[in-house]
């Protein structure tokens, strides 16, 4: 609690002591902006950046998160995370392909997307994506035990998602 008193600017305290009323802050100033952190084990791709909207691939469907979204814990499947933010007057869209992880939305508009791997979409080789899909599809067909089948299934889903994200038809 004592941290709060320390952070109140001295000017405000002096003015309050002198009995001068502070102007009321407008609603716009009080609305919290959405702060995004997109983190992988080896690096944080986006760190505490102010954004306007984030679309995430939840396991039961894609959904968007704005500031003041209800606190959520969402599991994410392999897919595309789209980040809408403002650069000057323009709105910029950044797309990242994620391997799967979690999105934690807190009450104070902090969105933490924690994934095992995230790559900017324009850094992915479309040929490798197409080839990977073909390879895992064949593996799925020839899989003998449950473990091999599960691994191939995961490979197929991820590459299917990759191809869809890159607008490649397989």
């Amino acid at each position, binding site marked *: 609690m004592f941290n709060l008193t320390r952070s109140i600017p001295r000017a405000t305290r002096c003015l309050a002591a002198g009995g001068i009323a502070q102007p009321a802050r407008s609603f716009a100033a009080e609305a919290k902006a959405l702060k995004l*952190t997109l*983190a992988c*084990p080896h690096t944080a791709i986006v760190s505490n950046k102010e954004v306007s909207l984030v679309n995430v691939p939840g396991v*039961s469907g894609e959904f968007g998160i704005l500031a003041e979204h209800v*606190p*959520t*814990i969402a599991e994410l499947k392999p897919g595309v995370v789209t980040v809408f933010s403002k650069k000057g007057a323009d709105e910029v869209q950044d797309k990242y392909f994620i391997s799967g992880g979690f999105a*934690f939305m807190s009450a104070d508009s902090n969105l*933490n997307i924690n994934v095992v791997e995230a790559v900017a979409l324009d850094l992915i080789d479309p040929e490798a994506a197409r080839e990977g899909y073909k390879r895992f599809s064949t593996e799925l067909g020839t899989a003998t035990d449950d473990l091999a089948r599960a691994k191939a299934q995961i490979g197929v889903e991820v590459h299917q998602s990759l191809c869809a994200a890159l607008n490649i038809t397989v």
Partner: protein
Amino acid sequence: MAGLLRAGPLGAAFSKTAGTSLLAPSVVSHAELGGVRNGAKLKEVKGRIRSVKNIGKITKTMKMIASARLREAQTRMEKSRPFAESAVKPFEGLKVDLKKNNVLVSIFSDRGLCGGLNGNVGRLITSTMSQRQTAGTDVSLVGMGDKAITAFGPTADKVAFSYGETSKRNLSFFAVSEIADQVIAKNPDSVSVMFNKFHSVISMKPEIIDLPGYQALLESPFFDQFEFEDDNREFHLQDVYEYTVASSIFGGYTENMASELGSRMTAMDNATRNAGDMLKKLEIWYNRGRQAAITTELTEIISGAAAVE
């Protein structure tokens, strides 16, 4: 490192100087050092000088290697901090009840000569275990790093399993996830991760992170404030729990790596400086001895020549 120097060939230097000490060469009596008979003693000192020089070279190299590796380990740690911290953030405010069954994952280094790192974690383990056992919690130990085995010696019956060769090269998140899988398979009521937190290059302190187990997560009203997708809380909390355990161990691991290298760099730096100081004193002693031997020989020759005349 100081212990090594005291035990080895230099230890002899400390004990054989009857009544005199290396630290005050000026009070060494000439009767002791003078004479050809004491050439053997001079040879010994020469040998010691050589070995101190070599040790100094080794510790200097170790320091340089540690500082080079430290730079990359520190970068790696700083880059993965957002990941480890944000994995635990949703649990902020959740009080962890250790309950009956607590698995304590402690992270050590593989090699020694890294200062007080492993000793500090070992001591914290002992105190934490006794605290928790008095409170009725059963603690099983999991170790990472070759030095865990030495530290676990006295509490060997509480050790669930231990991994070696974890700090020789960087473990990936996948490798750490496998370790996390083993921890989760024990079905603990709570999981704790102990590691050395990197505060600065010269300051690292052992820290514990306590995480609730799956059952505790399920039963806690804490998660009522969150919305879960398709309201399938049981399923998602299981995944969140496993993910958080893996992320926390990974975070602790990267911190410990940076701490280990920083600590080794400081320890080797001190050892090199000590070796340098020791070398100076040994060389002074050696020169005094050499000069005294020459003087004695000369006086013998001169007095012999005078007697003949």
